């Protein structure tokens, strides 16, 4: 049986935030983006476990940046969406669109 590659809601939001941030996507900026854009206050623990899960599934890749004194000499871990992650995100978005199509409550349009 194929391993599930479905995305949870938080995982989708994180992938979208990482795509928006481009090369500057790491823990602090991802949380700020989710807070500003999605109005979601994501706990650090929830974010880092989700990022670890996404990396295990192969949906994001990571690289270490340079250490800075403001971070106590620790490097940033930059994250980037992989091709597989983009594919999974598109699949999730299409599924959402198909389910939401024609629903008055969500779109404010009359049902077809």
């Amino acid at each position: 049986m194929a391993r599930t590659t479905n995305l949870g809601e938080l995982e989708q939001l994180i992938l979208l935030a990482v795509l928006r941030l481009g090369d500057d996507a790491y823990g602090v900026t991802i949380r700020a983006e989710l807070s500003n854009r999605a109005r979601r206050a994501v706990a650090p623990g929830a974010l880092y476990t989700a990022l670890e899960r996404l990396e295990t599934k192969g949906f994001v890749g990571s690289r270490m940046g340079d250490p800075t004194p403001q971070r106590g000499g620790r490097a940033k871990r930059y994250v980037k969406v992989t091709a597989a992650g983009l594919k999974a995100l598109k699949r999730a978005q299409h599924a959402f669109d198909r389910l939401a199509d024609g629903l008055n409550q969500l779109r404010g349009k009359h049902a077809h």
Partner: protein
Amino acid sequence: MRSTGWLMGSISSEVSMPTSQAERLLSLFTSADRASAIAGDLTEERDHRGPIVFWLDVVRTMSALWTRAVTDAPLRVLMLALSGCVLLVGPAFVGIAAIALFPGAIGSPVGWSGLSLAWCAGALWTGASLVGCAPSRGLAACATLALVGETLLIAFLARAPVPELPMVPLVIAYATSLAVPPLLLVGGAIARRRLIFRGLSTQEHHR
């Protein structure tokens, strides 16, 4: 220029001490480089959010990483925890056997202290063994076993009738039983830190 450099160094060391402590704690439940990055992120936010929120975030992140280790492979963690229970029995028997060699010590405070020492040492050894067998999930198993064990012990001690024993052995027995779960965790944490240090030393050697 020199005084500015000294000031920057002083600020840097003020920032890096809690960061190092946070990194050590986080590395118990995730890889060394992830722990370093997470500690750095939390330090970066510490200026805006303050030290209390910083430490709350460290604890909550550790808790989330522990939960993930358990929920990702619950059967494996359960088997490790059960192995830990079995391993804990061994030192208890060793302690009893050692005390039995000196009939005069049986039931005395010295005998109880010896038994407590054997059991505490056994708890440290069990924690270290679990992490040695399963470096990635061993500490999660230790933490699970410690939490469940401590909860059951406190519930049992709160409800069980006080046995007819002299006061000193009773206190030693109760104190030992409550100390075993945290010592299990300490043993696991020490083994985990050694593994990380060995891994870093290996990386340095290969450079």
